[in-house]
Each structure stands twice: as structure tokens, then as C-alpha cells.
């Protein structure tokens, strides 16, 4: 198990520069979003439908964890960030930044105590999306120009895509870990807040 996780991490380490750049872009977008929210620019909030779609059963914590996790994994990570990357490698970056802006705007509407309490969820869930973004960008690059994705290997488009898919599966193990942790933390924060 430990060896498998190390293998997953090593796949991300090979894409280290992209991972760090996406981290900066994503978390930087959250700060930018919060500043935009401060100036009254709430339009970005309405531009993403995801938050409206998720209707969670909030009385049952376990159900809430599963609901948040499944929605974040399938919709927010796989569909919006990874699959769009397969279509065009720039799209995951755009979606990540848009989500960051959205989070920043929404986050800024919270009172300071909740604002700070939500940080662990932001970081864990954000890391999940950034990793999904890394997988998405490489999936797109692999068929667009295999050399951009795998410099040292002289791969055909089909081989590069196969390799990127395999790498994406390894990366998704980490995505699952981060999103599951985020869902547990988020449910733990949300349920007492709502009951209160």
C-alpha cells in the first residue's frame, strides 16, 4: 500500500513544475476572488452552476460526506477539470482559476470565524482539484503533442495518450485521498454549524 502511494506521488513529482504553477494559480485565484467579492463583483458566483446543483442531505453526516465526496470527485474534478483537459489542455487551468475566484467571492461572505475554519477544507479540496488539473493538462498534451508531455520518450500520439491515462489513474488515487479528507472535514464543519 505504502509502495503504491509512493508510486502515485512519484508520478506527480515528474510533473512537479506544473503542479506548483497550478497551485499558485488556484490559491492565488482564491485571494483574487475574495478581493473582487470585497469590491462587489459577485457575477463570477453565478457563472458556475455546480454549487446550485449539489443538494446535500444535511441531517445525516455520513450521507453528507458521501454526497460531497462523490459530487466533488465526479463533477468538480473528473468532469470539469480532467475530462475537459482531454479535450483541450488549457481548459483545466481555466476551470481551476474560475473555481478559485468563485471560492474567494463566496468565502469572503463568511464571518471571520467561519472564514478561518473553512481553510482546511479549502486547502484539501483545492489540492484535489489541482491534482485533477495536472492529470487533465497531461491528458490533453499527450495527444496534442506527445513531446510536450513526455520529452525524453519518442512516443506516438496513441502511446502517449495511453501512458497519460495510466498516469492519470495514479494521480487520481491522490485526488481521492484529498477529496475524501476534504469531505470529512467539510461535513464535520458544516453539520454543527447548520444545527447551531
Amino acid at each position, binding site marked *: 500500500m505504502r509502495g503504491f502511494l509512493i508510486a502515485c506521488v512519484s508520478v506527480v513529482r515528474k510533473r512537479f513544475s506544473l503542479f506548483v504553477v497550478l497551485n499558485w494559480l488556484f490559491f492565488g485565484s482564491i485571494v483574487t476572488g475574495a478581493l473582487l467579492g*470585497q469590491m462587489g463583483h459577485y457575477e463570477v458566483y453565478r457563472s458556475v452552476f455546480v454549487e446550485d446543483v449539489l443538494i446535500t442531505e444535511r441531517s445525516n453526516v455520513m450521507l453528507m460526506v458521501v454526497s460531497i465526496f462523490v459530487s466533488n470527485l465526479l463533477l468538480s474534478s473528473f468532469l470539469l477539470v480532467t475530462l475537459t483537459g482531454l479535450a483541450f489542455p488549457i481548459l483545466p487551468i481555466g476551470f481551476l482559476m474560475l473555481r478559485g475566484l468563485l471560492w474567494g467571492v463566496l468565502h469572503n461572505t463568511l*464571518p471571520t470565524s467561519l472564514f478561518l475554519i473553512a*481553510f482546511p477544507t479549502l486547502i484539501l479540496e483545492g489540492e484535489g482539484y489541482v491534482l485533477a488539473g495536472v492529470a487533465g493538462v497531461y491528458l490533453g498534451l499527450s495527444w496534442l503533442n506527445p513531446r510536450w508531455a513526455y520529452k525524453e520518450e519518442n512516443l506516438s500520439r496513441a502511446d502517449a495518450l495511453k501512458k497519460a491515462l495510466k498516469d492519470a489513474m495514479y494521480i487520481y488515487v491522490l485526488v481521492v485521498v484529498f477529496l475524501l479528507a476534504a469531505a470529512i472535514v467539510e461535513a464535520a464543519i458544516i453539520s454543527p454549524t447548520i444545527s447551531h
Partner: protein
Amino acid sequence: MELTERKKQISLVLLSIIVPMSLLGTFRLTGILKEPTKVAETITLETIEWEFERINQSADIFYVVEALHDDNGFAVNQRIHIWDYVNRPLAWSGSTITMVVELNSNTTSQNGYIESVYVALYKDQLSTVDWVRPLSRFGNLSIVEQAVGYEWSTKADLRLTSVKHSRSVKFSAMVVWSLLTPNNQSHQMDVLYELIYYNGTAYKKITQPFQLKVMGR
């Protein structure tokens, strides 16, 4: 060497998270990012109801559902003008009710001002609510967000903020409520006006609910 490289990578990843998040926290704690308005008191006024029986023909209604509230130099008047009912026999195209939601408010308090206005139109999922934007008018208010009530959503809403803490604000927005059912089906819409104002010492919120019922024949 490998360990150094690994440590460097971990440091760079941590920095890419810690620096933006620390900035965010610092901005809030130092007041650069201001805390949302704290409302000291919320006054919920009595629900005003309106009922209409669906008919098999189109008709002008021209009915005004209205609420007035006056509180120590602060006044607010919320109105819903129900204009007409357009009957369409095919349920999928929807019979429609056209109405105008309006608000007028002012304060005579020396340091008082209107902070924000929020209007939500809660509907069932067999109807839609659309804003007729070109026919909307705003006085000393600017739109923060405006959402259409699609079939799958639960509400249409409009969030406004007062321009430069105005002491007098007003708006008028046309709405089309489409009922996507045959005439024997009933519908209900709950309209909620929320206005936050500053009376010179504290923020107060006035909530005025309206309930519009369209009864099936």
C-alpha cells in the same frame, strides 16, 4: 542530494499553498477584507397573500399587492403589480403571469442609510421565473447578482446594493412567471423582500414575505 531535492520540492509546494492562504487570512484579520454586515435586529413582517383562479382565457389583472412599514424615520414600501394572465392551452409552452416587483425606501435619520436589498421569488419546479431586464429600473441601487428561476431551480433572485450609502432607494423589475402545467394545476410563489438599513447606531433587516397562489380550475 536526492533528499535535498525532495525537501526543495516539498518547500515549494507548501509555499504555493501557505503564501496565498496566509495572505487571505491576513487580509481578513487586518480588515482589508471586511467582515459582512452584522445585522443587530431582524423584523419579519406579516405575510401578504394573493390568490387567483386559473381561467381558460387570457385576462388583464392589474392588481397591486402592497406592504408598508414605517419605523422611526425609516420607511419601506414593497409592491407587486400583477399585470396579466396569458392562457396557453399547451402546458409545455406555459401560461404566464406578468408582474412587476417594486420597492421604495427612504430614511430621514441623520446618519442612516439603506445598505442593501434582496428579493427572492421561490417557486415550484413546474414553473419558471424570468426577469425582463430591459424593463427594470433602479434608483440609487446597483445590481450585485441576478438569477433566473429555471425549471430545475428553486428560486429567481435579485441582490442589490445601495450606491454610496443612499438614504433613498427604489427599484422596479418586471417578472414573467410561466406555469408549465395544464389549467387544472395549482402553483405557489413565495416572494421575499429583505432590506438592510443602518439607523445611525445599528444595522436592521426588514423581511417582508408575500405569497402568490394560482389555483387550478
